[in-house]
């Protein structure tokens, strides 16, 4: 079943700005889906249309088989949204914010309280449950918005740049939590500017540019299309010019060289050349983030 189906969705804002020019998108139930695009590409508009914050000019949005226009209540109950910007009452406490959101979704106060406590524990906010939200750090505020979005147990979780401004350690923790959620059956739609996040987490992705979809497919398949096959090889000792020549590499600095492979060459060719050149390898990493390369080649 499709968790989200978007067909020909258009949005023209007052003033004539055409933010979406007929976007089509399909996300399968259980997917971890990335929506990529530059600032102003239309990602947030598309998300806001899906959750009912923006009125679409045309097209159709279906959530778990239910038409948004025909039965908005059911579609809203299926979706949890973590917006890009903080949008809670900063004078309320995390526990009240999460419980209140549960109430808006029709949860009984006792159920909402129990669920809020469960989520605040799970997201590491329990110690701050009674502190005014204005006093939380940026990372805590992000996690609070995730807790709030999950209070009514949505089947589709939409995250609009959830890790913006979050430190590396915290980001990894959030990744783990999102992976666990996805494994438990929650479909996740993610927008992010951290492209390694897409490579680490997502199964499928779409790139939008100037209000239209320009590339769509599975992350692995799209990465395979990426033209860049350059690897940074870290050697045990600085190579001689002859060794660099044998490696058919470019010398970067000291003990690091960059090896480029032709599209039909296997990855093990890197090691074969190293063996031929008589150098010892400490590590091999892609010269550039592959998603980043794909993204840049697509939008340019």
């Amino acid at each position, binding site marked *: 079943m499709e968790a989200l189906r978007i067909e020909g969705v258009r949005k023209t804002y007052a003033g004539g700005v055409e933010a979406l020019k007929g976007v089509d998108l399909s996300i399968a139930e259980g997917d971890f889906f990335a929506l990529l695009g530059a600032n102003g590409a239309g990602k947030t508009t598309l998300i*806001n249309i899906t*959750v009912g914050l923006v*009125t679409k000019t045309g097209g159709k949005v279906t959530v778990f088989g239910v038409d948004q226009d025909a039965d908005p209540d059911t579609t*809203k109950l299926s979706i949890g949204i973590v*917006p890009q910007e903080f949008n809670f009452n900063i004078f309320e406490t995390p526990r009240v914010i999460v419980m209140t959101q549960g109430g808006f979704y*029709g949860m009984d*106060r006792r159920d909402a309280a129990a669920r809020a406590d469960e989520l605040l524990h799970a997201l590491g906010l329990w110690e701050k449950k009674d502190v005014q939200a204005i006093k939380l750090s940026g990372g805590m505020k992000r996690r609070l918005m995730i807790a709030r979005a999950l209070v009514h147990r949505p089947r589709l979780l939409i995250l609009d740049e959830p890790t913006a401004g979050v430190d590396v350690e915290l980001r990894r923790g959030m990744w783990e939590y999102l992976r666990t959620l996805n494994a438990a059956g929650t479909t996740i739609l993610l927008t992010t500017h951290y492209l390694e996040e897409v490579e680490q987490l997502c199964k499928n992705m779409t790139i939008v540019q100037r209000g239209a979809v320009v590339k769509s497919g599975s992350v692995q398949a799209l990465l395979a299309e990426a033209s860049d096959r350059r690897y940074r090889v870290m050697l045990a000792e600085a190579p001689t010019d002859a060794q660099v020549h044998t490696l058919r590499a470019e010398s970067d600095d000291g003990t690091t060289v960059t090896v480029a492979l032709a599209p039909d060459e296997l990855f093990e060719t890197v090691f074969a050349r190293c063996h031929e050149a008589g150098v010892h390898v400490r590590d091999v990493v892609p010269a550039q983030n592959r998603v980043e390369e794909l993204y840049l080649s697509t939008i340019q």
Partner: protein
Amino acid sequence: MRADLLKNSLFTIIRREMTRIFRLWSQTLLPPVITQSLHFLIFGGFIGSRVGLVDGVPYIAFIVPGLVMMTVIQNSFMNVVSSFFLAKFQRSIEELIVSPTPDWAMMVGYVFGGIVRGAVSGVLVFAVCAVFAHPTIRHPFAILLFLFLAATLFSLAGFLNGIFAKTFDDISIFSTFVLVPLTYLGGVFYSLNQLPAFWQNVSRLNPILYMVDGFRYGFFGVASVPVWWSAVVLALIAFAITLVNLALLRRGVGMKQ
């Protein structure tokens, strides 16, 4: 939305409004008591002692219903417009928009908060005034009816102002340039019968006159305008604002792009 879910959603909005009003009592309930006590002491006590009787009632007692009504009007209005606009300003209103809570429930929740704050402020001001003026209560039902109508009407008006407000200035413009002049010219400090015929007719265009007059009838049993007519006019205005609010919410004015 299913009835049981709707009940929980509506109660959640109301509970949040109640919490805000009573948690911030020093900002929501205390100021009107101080302001109206000063009005009462200066106009009723110092000046009123030289005025004598108005419509057969001592002036100090005559102004009590007007001061209470003024409190109800201003606090109902300001509670809704400030709470609703703050939710828009912080974008926490999006919590409601993304949920299945219907538009009308959102409006009812905020308006209920305005009614409660208006009523509680009014009762507090009345309690202070009653210590000095000992006003009579002839028709308690009329008092409750006009209290409810005024609080509802101005809570709805506050919601309407909140829908259109884009800046903090926008929430004070209506209050400063419309609400306050209409309140002072609505017979709080004088009887309609004291005005020349022309100004009596002009005053009849002011809805606050009907609130004050009907409310005062509940205390003293005298009214410048037939009481049933006042109640009908106020109910019709409240109904009209309700329809306008619902139409604007349905179109997403001020909240959705």
